[in-house]
């Protein structure tokens, strides 16, 4: 039922989602500006 390919792809997907969740939480925790410098506010510093 659960073949090797499915298991491998599932693992890979889980890894991608975990990494993405990690970065999402990190960017939320950092709060405020993420330093994209998409504005004068950052750029002029």
């Amino acid at each position: 039922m659960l073949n090797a390919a499915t298991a491998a792809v599932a693992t890979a997907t889980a890894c991608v989602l975990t990494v993405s969740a990690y970065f999402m939480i990190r960017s939320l925790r950092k709060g405020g500006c993420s330093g994209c410098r998409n504005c004068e506010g950052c750029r002029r510093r």
Partner: protein
Amino acid sequence: MIRAALAGNPNCGKTTLFNKLTGSSQRVGNWPGVTIDRKEGRIKGADAILVDLPGIYSLSPYSPEEIVSRDFLLDESPDVIVNIVDATNMERNLYLTSQILDVGIPTVVALNMMDAVRKDGGEIDTVKLSSALGCRVVGMSALKGEGIEELIAAITEAAASGKVPEPLRLSEAAEASASRISEVLRGKVPDGQIRWYSVKALERDPLALERTGDLEGEILHIVEEMERETDDDSDSVVASDRYSAVSRAAASSTGKRGASKGRTTSDRIDRIVTDRWLGLPIFAGVMFLVYYISISTIGSWGTDWMNDVFFGEWIIPGMRAWLEGASVDPVLTAFIVDGLIAGFGAVIGFLPQMLVLFVLLVILEDCGYMARIAFVMDRVFRRFGLSGKSFIPVLIGTGCGVPGIMASRTIESERDRRITAMTTTFIPCSAKLPVIALIAGALFGGSALVALASYLVGIAAILMSGIILKKWKSLAGAPSEFIMELPAYHMPGAVTVFRSTLEKTWAFVRKAGTFILLACGLVWFLSTFSWNMVLVEDVNTSMLADMGRALSWMFVPLGWGGDWQFTVGTLTGLLAKENVVGTFGVLFGFSEVSEAGEEIWTMVAAMLTPIAGFSFLLFNLLCAPCFAAIGAMRRELGTWKATGAAVLYQCGLAYAVSLIVFQIGSLAIYGTFGVWTAVSLAVAALLVYLVVSNDPFRMSARRSGEVAC
């Protein structure tokens, strides 16, 4: 390890110098309590950390940028201050230097843009300037990379010697009073900072006086004596003295001083672009061009290619074929292809448009035209409680709300910035166009008036919100000032444009890879499974359908709550507004619909009356924007609480407007009158009241900024 601080005016090449000094070893964080970046990095080839302070004109205690810089210099006492000074605009730049020299920390002045001075045939004697200022001066050009080595050597030297610069002398009267104040303060503040506190107390600086505690009365007595003697306010005396001291220093190091060539060219350009008659047409032309290039032509070719070819023909079918070929479980395949990749792709598809838009905006900003846009448009927006700078985000918002909200950061006034960030998404973004096309096509015979009405409603909502929101306590405040430098025009540097564009683009990709990816996974899951985790055949039995049904009662008064599909469409619209039409396609049983959804027009027409359709459209245009835009809003507003309040306001306004339009429209067209008609009339009255009522904060705001007699 040396700790150095980089301080300087805005627009003087500070970012360029910081990048040159630290290379890629930068870390970005936040200053405590404010949404201002704190960047630091290791200086190349030296055992030193450089902290980048915000760009400021003065160390006065009013803007958060200034307070952050003061606190850092006083409380964290770096080993050395690197003060970058624009050599083409010495006087105003050295005014900040004169305050930095008072702090009692070894200082190196980095005299930037020496190449521009030379090009204009000018000359600055750094040795003479150095002796006039009493600290090391290094002539350099951050852009050309000249003098960087020398600057780094000067920084390490200054830190090693620990030699504190001699403060610039003020007038006799001010010096005498400052030294009397320093006698009073002796022992109460750190010895090295006594000069700083004495002079700041002499200026009646509230933050400095705060730290003097019960000595305030005694100090103010000395200040008043000097004011009687000089027949002028003490802050005015100190500011004039500082400027006289720095213009003496500047004059000693330069020969004859005339308007530089860069300035006269700038003046000539300004004469045209801010001309009485040409100013507005030129502005409209520039904006049309930006919009045309990034949204309609080059950018949209790229986006269409990304959507139709890259994702539509290569990635999605390719991935599906590969996964099926490897006999991966079909549910997992669907999750990856229809959930994650389709969702991620929908957002990443906008990347080409964004990239082009970013490049153009960076160029406009870097060359100095953005400041002129604010100058030209200020009058209009000030009427509605916003500033001229609020126009730029709205304009960008017609393409996409995310960069629009981000662009609100060009606004210095905290209050204007917050109101702008909260209202920018009212303007229909390009992702809302399919919704407009659907409603116009299905219910209004494709009339272009629907689109026009959508833009007008968006603009009206922004201007109305400007008036309403400034009556809120947290957003009230003195009308922000518009005392703004109009920097000299210059050719945008290729490196700067490339770097800023890359950084912005990366931020966009990062968002798509986090928020959007995860949210898309979740929606796919909700629309594919039932509550007991069984795969559903029919989307009507999915969890998402139940959620839609659970919420659709709320939209009954708006005329489109009878069918849960519209509620679900609105919900999935939160992910990306393009989803609204796509969701209908799935929910009405068409697996693929074209962008405007022609296939489902008849079904929508059967379910909604035109007025209910228009109400649905208005609600979707005005209510909470997509998650990406909410995330951007969160970044500008600083807290989730403020963001939540903003989203509530947007949804509330959307509900009110849709309710009024549907109920009063039904009354007018079909003569239906019910409880909700009455309610909608009351809501309309409330909105009118909010707009025309007196501003409770206006009087006090007026007074603080008003001319004192």
